[in-house]
């Protein structure tokens, strides 16, 4: 018999713990900012949504539909990284052991955690809805219709929220997906999920019915298929963009007709919401109930994973790099470089597979045609480097080693600089030969690669310092990596590392400035945290 009171207690506590975090307040600020950026003033030449290069008239329908659709997509990505630590935090605090010793059943615990996730993500969605409502008051061109907003958000959000909540819980229950690998796997899982809507996005508008959702809409948590089908059937065109986008000022704005959801639409959304639910059964089956033996086994299995297994096998290799620890530290500069090399050595010791891959990558770089080096090998190198970079700037905070190493001269005050320099060296360690080859044929692209290495490292350090968790960098880096790779240089601004050679001087300068801004932000955040801890 499931106790509603116990389930409620788990869900409510989980929600309270998350909701009262400072990072949640920051998330709400970011949501408001996102709403502000997503709904631009048409006078700037940009709009929230264009159809055949016509901007849509800013009425409640267009703003509600577009913002709900975009938020649903973003929520299904970022939401995972926000809630995929609900069981982990009970393990880390050891409160899970107390939970396991109570009459609380595992199914009640997991269901409580699920509702906690849903409540939290639902609260964020409500926050975004209010922000978009406020933006409407600023930019709307017709009277506000609150029910129109509620309709689209109610139609799109629940399946998206449930999907993320279930998958986060499932990944936490599966030992090898409960860590960094799960973070990366989910990203590709999310891309696949978005791909479900491709059937509608690529379909001819005349082949779609306004009243009968395409079959893919029944398997579409984000609701992209449903929205794409509505826009296509309502406007009779297949060309439209949702999101901050330029439009043709000479073309008159179009008024988007509202979607009148019938039973088939509701069924499609209901089906999309229910589809992930059976996965909870799998989560229940694999849930360890905080049994230390099973937790230990999980850890053991993780060690036996092929990446970690290879790392263990290659551990002796790390000794080769011990010379880095002997850097002469006779002056301030010596201490700085000594700390940087020690940090770099630490990464190589933690991931002994990296030097092997770096050597392999360098050798292959020598023989591959240059386009293959820049467009395949370098992107792969950046992808491989995401986990170690994510770890670098939050290692001390995560493992509580800060107090021990901060006694090292200068390290505490030069922390951000040391971490950044070590991260840049790590990227260049992988891409150095490729960089040299590019430098001879296209010096501009080589400069882009250098700046790309710097911006990648700066993002890792900045997010590591601010969030103190590797998740933030993993998701941001994966998203950016995917956008840059899939765009293949069509938008020069996305070619941050010069993989496709389309980034010009302006783009390079912008990324260089961004790097400096990120480092300044990291330094400010670091000093603020440091001072706060000293006061405490």
């Amino acid at each position: 018999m499931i106790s509603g009171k116990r389930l409620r207690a788990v869900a409510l506590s989980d929600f309270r713990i998350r909701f009262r975090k400072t990072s949640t307040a920051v998330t709400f600020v970011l949501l408001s900012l996102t709403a502000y950026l997503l709904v631009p003033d048409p006078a700037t030449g940009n709009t929230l949504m264009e159809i055949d290069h016509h901007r849509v008239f800013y009425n409640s329908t267009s703003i509600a539909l577009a913002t709900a659709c975009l938020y649903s997509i973003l929520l299904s990505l970022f939401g995972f990284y926000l809630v995929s630590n609900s069981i982990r935090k009970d393990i880390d605090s050891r409160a899970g052991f107390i939970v396991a010793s109570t009459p609380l059943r595992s199914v009640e615990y997991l269901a409580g955690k699920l509702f906690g996730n849903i409540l939290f993500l639902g609260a964020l969605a409500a926050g975004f809805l209010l922000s978009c409502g406020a933006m409407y008051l600023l930019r709307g061109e017709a009277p506000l219709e609150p029910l129109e907003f509620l309709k689209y958000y109610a139609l799109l959000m629940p399946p998206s929220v449930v999907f993320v909540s279930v998958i986060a819980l499932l990944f936490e229950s599966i030992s090898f997906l409960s860590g960094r690998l799960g973070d990366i796997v989910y990203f590709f899982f999310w891309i696949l999920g978005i791909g479900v809507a491709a059937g509608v996005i690529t379909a001819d508008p005349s082949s779609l019915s306004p009243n009968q959702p395409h079959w893919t809409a029944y398997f579409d948590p984000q609701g992209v298929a449903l929205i794409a089908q509505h826009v296509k059937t309502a406007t009779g065109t297949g060309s439209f963009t949702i999101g901050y986008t330029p439009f043709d000022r000479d073309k008159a704005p179009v008024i988007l007709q509202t979607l009148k959801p019938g039973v088939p639409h509701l069924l499609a959304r209901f089906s999309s919401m229910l589809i992930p639910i059976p996965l909870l059964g799998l989560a229940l089956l694999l849930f360890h109930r905080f049994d230390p033996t099973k937790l230990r086994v999980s850890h053991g299995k993780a060690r036996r994973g092929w990446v970690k297994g290879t790392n263990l096998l290659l551990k002796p290799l790390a000794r080769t790099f011990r010379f880095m620890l002997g850097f002469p530290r006779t002056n301030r500069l010596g201490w700085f470089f000594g700390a940087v090399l020690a940090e770099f050595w630490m990464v190589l010791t933690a991931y002994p597979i990296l030097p092997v891959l770096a050597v392999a990558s360098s050798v292959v770089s020598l023989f591959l045609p240059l386009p293959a080096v820049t467009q395949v090998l370098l992107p792969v190198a950046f992808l491989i480097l995401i986990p170690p970079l994510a770890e670098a700037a939050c290692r001390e905070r995560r493992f509580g080693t800060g107090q021990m190493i901060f006694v090292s001269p200068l390290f505490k005050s030069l922390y951000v600089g040391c971490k950044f320099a070590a991260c840049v060296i790590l990227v260049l360690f992988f891409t150095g030969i490729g960089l040299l080859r590019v430098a001879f044929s296209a010096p501009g692209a080589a400069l882009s690669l250098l700046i790309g290495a710097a911006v990648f490292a700066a993002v890792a350090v900045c997010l590591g310092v601010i969030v103190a968790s590797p998740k933030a960098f993993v998701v941001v880096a994966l998203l950016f990596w995917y956008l840059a790779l899939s765009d293949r240089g069509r938008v020069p601004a996305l070619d941050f590392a010069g993989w496709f050679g389309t980034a010009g001087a302006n783009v390079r300068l912008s990324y260089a400035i961004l790097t400096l801004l990120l480092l300044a932000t990291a330094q400010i955040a670091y000093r603020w945290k440091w001072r706060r801890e000293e006061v405490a």
Partner: protein
Amino acid sequence: MNEPSATLLSIQSVTKRFRSGTFGIKDLSLDMQGGVIGLLGPNGAGKTTLMQMIATISVPTSGRIVFRGSDIVREPDVLRQKLGYLPQDFGVYDNLTAREFLSYFASLKGVYRPSRISEMLELVNLHAVANRPVGGFSGGMKQRLGIAQALINDPDLLIVDEPTAGLDPEERVRFRNILSDIGFGRLVILSTHIVSDIESVATQIAILREGSLVAFAPPEALLCATVGRVWEAVVKSEEFEELRKTLKISSAIRKPDGVHIRIVGPEKQLPGSVAAEPGLEDAFLYHLNADSVAGGQDHDQR
């Protein structure tokens, strides 16, 4: 063995073997009635593993744990209704207030009476800070909150694992007093490797070494078994460094005339040493090293 009717908790030939092949607990049997049981042993002796099995968090590889006639390995809920557990290095949810924290665990244990939460906060002297986030609490306050959550369902069995680790002396005394007050009318199992934590409160002491029980008896019996095996001597500092390598020294205090040491051993091992009345620390050291200090004779008090 005690009469089955008087036994509250019976551990019967319990073994815990990990996947790695190492033993956490080796064929351990123990019958417990009410009172405070001090579980003593060095780090790695298996105290936490044993407590986790009793707390139904971990399952023994073999053997039975019986609570009031029910096998709790098969029916853990029988015990969970009447169990209070405070794990080692227990953490808190920083963003919850003390009252919310207790309400959460009270709900999980099926206690829905708000007055019970107030009672517990009063008991551990946290009522004045009941509505403050626990993230700002000191280590001692968090431990007191931990014991409050363990007691919220008025348990018949209370398991407390290394509760005083990291606490300052004042908080240690305060915590011991709380345990002493609540020890009546229930079974309290308190694990520690610090003898002073239990010497004033334990009615029986179990000593564990490498997953096996080496002694289980009231403190008085452990002390009796150690009479005539504790010696006091005053040695020079330079001698002391050598002696500590060869003798079992239970305490050493530096004074102007030299280092005052207490040696645990079957006979006088140092000229000039005099027989001393044993303390629980000496008894612990004696039983823990029974093989080496007493020539391997059986000291199991079961």
